[in-house]
């Protein structure tokens, strides 16, 4: 795919070898190229950089195997919500994406699957009509073509600028997940930082298998709201992937470097002889 070539060009150009990025956690400076080589993990402190959808696909999929589906959908400011159109324009120009999710089919170690990847760089990957519609179409496609689905979740929650219709996306996607599940097909979610609100309360938590990246923030209510409600200090690891694992809501926490192999194995285990 052209974007992957674009991307490889970007990280392998001479400029990527000298261009530095600074770790949000420890301020360590690293070249873009080295960071890419290290799965976008800070070599100094182990911080997981948040990935754009294309970088995620590039790390996961067999070379040239990704084929994008259900693109061409863009959000509409149908409620004339203050500031929404500006937010959309800005997100589209900074991410060069149409909205907060990229969908398609791909393979990993030769195993075919349908995939969606949410992109927190696009309005915190909030879920509006486009996100809901694309993921629904992906599940419908996967059901029709008997494909497993791997979904990378990240989200600030439902997109309030689309009012109650963004809430309805939760049920719409859930219906498509249910049909996919009833067809005996596998759905794996990979929770990434941060997965919250309406996405946590719908398809992020509906996987047959729920994996998470280390330290990812995953929860329903925002930490500040919980703190106000509970009127006490919350433990540092509250709503972390490790916290969820401890409380039984995640199957496994998988380091980024092992994710590809783990997913390939899980897909193989669920492959049925035809």
């Amino acid at each position, binding site marked *: 795919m052209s974007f992957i070539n674009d991307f490889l060009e970007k990280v392998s150009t001479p400029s990527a070898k000298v261009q530095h990025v600074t770790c949000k956690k420890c301020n360590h400076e690293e070249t873009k190229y080295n960071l890419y080589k290290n799965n976008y993990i800070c070599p100094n402190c182990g911080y997981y950089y948040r990935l754009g959808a294309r970088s995620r696909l590039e790390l996961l999929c067999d070379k040239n195997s990704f084929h994008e589906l259900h693109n061409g959908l863009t959000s509409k400011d149908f409620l004339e919500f203050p500031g929404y159109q500006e937010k959309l324009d800005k997100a589209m120009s900074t991410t060069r994406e149409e909205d907060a999710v990229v969908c398609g089919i791909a393979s990993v170690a030769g195993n075919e699957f349908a995939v969606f990847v949410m992109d927190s760089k696009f309005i915190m990957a909030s879920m509006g009509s486009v996100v809901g519609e694309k993921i629904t179409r992906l599940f419908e496609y996967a059901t029709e073509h008997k494909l497993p689905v791997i979904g990378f979740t990240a989200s600030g929650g439902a997109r309030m600028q689309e009012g109650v219709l963004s809430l309805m996306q939760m049920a719409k996607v859930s219906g498509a997940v249910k049909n996919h599940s009833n067809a005996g097909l596998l759905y794996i979610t990979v929770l990434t930082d941060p997965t919250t609100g309406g996405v946590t309360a719908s398809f992020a938590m509906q996987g047959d298998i729920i994996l998470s990246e280390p330290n990812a923030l995953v929860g329903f209510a925002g930490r500040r709201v919980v703190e106000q409600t509970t009127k006490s200090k919350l433990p540092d690891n509250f709503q972390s992937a490790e916290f969820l694992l401890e409380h*039984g809501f995640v199957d496994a926490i998988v380091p980024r470097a092992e994710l590809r192999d783990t997913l390939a194995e899980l897909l193989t285990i669920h492959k049925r002889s035809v």
Partner: protein
Amino acid sequence: MDSYEKLKTARKNGRPTGEAYVKGIIEFPFELHGDRRFGDDLAIMGGVGFIDKHPVTFLAMEKGTDLPSRLARNFGCPKPEGYRKALRLMKQAEKFHRPVICFVDTLGAYPGADAEERGQGQAIAESIMEMMGLRTPVISIVIGEGGSGGALALASANKVFILENAVYSVISPEGCASILWKESTPENVAKAADCLHITAQDMKSLGVAEKVIREDFDHFDKMCAGIKLRLLDTIEEFAAMSEEEIVEQRYQRFRKFGVFDEK
């Protein structure tokens, strides 16, 4: 009334709450308790009874009517065990082929540390997903506040009715105002309520509710009798459908939601 007035009306003390509708509409209601996993959440009451000759399962969010009952009911903000009780009773309704009637009234799912620990998000997610596949009809009535995912967990239904001064929203106008304009002053909340389009009339025009129900709290018995007739009609409408048709109708109901541009 503007959106903000409606919001205040929907939350007003003295407005009938879930239990009043159960008593006013369901004949011989028998309450069933507990989620069989952790506990019994009184923010959602559930049970069985009749509407005319039809056995039904009812679920009602209950905010409480005075301070002690509000505390006992956690002000109508359900915890995971509330949603798990509701789901248990919905699956039971499916087993015995009876319709489910939900009365929705919550500011939102409870955002406490204990609720997060016990998987609030997972509980709602499971409820919505299982409702979308339920092989028996679900009819939900928003009687006060339809607060976000916590409300949708009892409203992923075949049909949704809403009272004329009830509201339904993706986020509380207070939450929206504090995100957008930092402070949830009454002016900001009023503005957010407008922007979010939360009124019953908005729900009708967006297709999120099929019917808006007139309020007449001075003649509450009469009002309940009217709602009961509507429910009876709807139950009989679904009784003529197969289980597959019921699931498909619900799927298509939600499938159409969304406004976007497509190249």
